[in-house]
């Protein structure tokens, strides 16, 4: 049975015995069938949240529904495939035998093992011991184990962590393929381009709190300010004039290019002044803020923009 929401949390909070408040009053709503990026800097509370959603950690307060049931219950786990933090398997067993163990835990036949090994491109090495696997192969086995249950919802914690560029591209393709199969994917990451390329919607967490949620474009729009890029020579005179016009705090010079944090509608007037002062303007355009800028802004300000 498909749920309208694959994951829903209300006031989810985790305070560790040491007093550290890892997750604070978190409210998430992940729709069925979407790839949801859970974005945040290291230590923001991403993995703690995923552990609570997988039933590994008991929340201090608040509640969650995962795949239509309480996290950690058999009903929830039977519809959930998860890889939280590092893929952990028995080093003395082969990849295939590790999947056999997982299939037995789930009470499934071993018939699904070959298809999922093919899907993650691990069939050739499946009879080798897990301890001989590279980081990328371990990650792929983790995804294979998560897919073994034919789950409605996949929770993947930093799935490209430790992968080389080729492995990263392959993992992204795999996630796209999983989405095509109609599954919901919740993907945590601190890699912005990964989230930008893979996810339908993004939630940004900082210091245990959700500070923003929406599509990448919505987040960019929400951040408000834009940048104007100007290339003008001579650079010293251009810098002096621009400082007089917009203020030094709004100008950043990198590789001969001025980045002005101003309303792009000022482009024409700035251009007139620069040309009138005898400067050569070779480039002048509005620049969309990168997701990185948005992310830094959100996580540093806790989501409150002026």
């Amino acid at each position, binding site marked *: 049975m498909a749920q309208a929401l694959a994951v829903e949390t209300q006031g989810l909070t985790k305070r560790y*015995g040491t007093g550290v408040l890892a997750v604070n009053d978190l409210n998430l709503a992940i729709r069925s069938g979407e790839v949801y990026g859970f974005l945040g800097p290291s230590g923001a509370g991403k993995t703690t949240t995923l*552990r609570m959603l997988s039933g590994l*950690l008991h929340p201090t307060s608040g509640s969650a529904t995962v795949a239509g049931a309480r996290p950690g219950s058999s009903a929830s786990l039977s519809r959930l495939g*998860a890889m939280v*933090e590092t893929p*952990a398997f028995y080093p003395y067993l082969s990849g295939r035998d590790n999947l056999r163990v*997982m299939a*037995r*835990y*789930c009470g499934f036949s071993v018939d699904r093992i070959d298809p999922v090994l093919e899907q993650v491109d691990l069939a050739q090495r499946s009879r080798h011991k897990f301890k001989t696997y590279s980081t990328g192969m371990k990650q792929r086995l983790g995804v294979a184990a998560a897919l073994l249950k034919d789950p409605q919802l996949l929770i993947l914690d930093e799935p490209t962590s430790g992968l080389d560029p080729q492995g990263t591209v392959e993992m992204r393709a795999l996630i796209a393929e999983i989405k095509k199969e109609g599954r919901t994917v919740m993907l945590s990451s601190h890699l912005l381009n990964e989230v930008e390329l893979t996810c339908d919607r993004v939630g940004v967490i900082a210091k245990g709190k959700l500070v923003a949620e929406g599509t990448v474009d919505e987040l960019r729009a929400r951040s408000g300010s834009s940048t104007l890029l100007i290339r003008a020579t001579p650079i010293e005179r251009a810098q002096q004039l621009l400082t007089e016009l917009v203020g030094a705090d709004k100008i950043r010079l990198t590789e001969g290019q001025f980045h002005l944090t101003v309303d792009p509608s000022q482009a024409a007037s700035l251009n007139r002044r620069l040309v009138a002062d005898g400067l050569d303007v070779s480039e002048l355009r509005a620049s969309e803020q990168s997701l990185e800028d948005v992310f830094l802004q959100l996580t540093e300000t806790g989501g409150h923009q002026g």
Partner: protein
Amino acid sequence: MIASFRAEILKMRKRWANWVLLGVLLVVLVLLGYVLSYVILKNPPKGFRSEVPASTLLKEIFPENLIPNVLAGMGTIGAAIMIILGGLNTASEYSWVTVQTILIQKPGRLAVLFGKLLALALASLLISIAVLGIAALTSYILATVDGANGAWPAADVLLRGFAALWLQLLVWTMFGMFLGLAFRSTAAAIGGGLTYLFVIESLVGGLFRNTTGLKEVLKFLPGLNAGGINATFPFTFRNPNAAATVLVSATRGTITLVIYLLLFMILAALIFRRRDVGA
């Protein structure tokens, strides 16, 4: 629970360390419990002094004394190996972080735990069978080589002896399992378990079993309760050298061991059900 049990059996069967433990146990049993005794008692060294002649002591390793000889041997080496087995197969899940992987499969936490307990119980049953089988075979071979009377104990003695052996090995396995869960570290579980066995049970239990006051405390130790059960399987000859004070009756010993068995399982379930994983 059956699904978890099947998964546990696969893991245990494929793990070489478990087979090595079984091999060590059987080799030590055969060499120290039978072959070495046979060699020494057939050719007693100069200065060998015993109230019982070596030729009589030799009966210790013949089939008629299969049960008391096996139970005596398993009290220390058997207990040690089973503590290691229990500790290894639970604490490793934490050192490899695989506890996290199995807890996000389908079964609930208690089903996972009881699947593991059932698998360990089966392992201790099979080890008990292997121990008794190898001991019986070695004993028979040595008796045949010696040309001695190869009489076997009565069937009811064999059955009760086997049950006593399994109960004792099972208690030590569950002790190791409990330590593995409590410490979440293989080294701490095995180190703690063996230290308890050799220092508290063997050393303190051996030295102070006749000390008034302390004796009452010792009556609660699992090893000394196992001794109470073992005392109901005497050797076919009287050996004053080996006579040790028996602190508890066989009935009390059996009840105490069953209580320990349940206690270790209940405590393990309480810890495993509530404790955060990966915190």
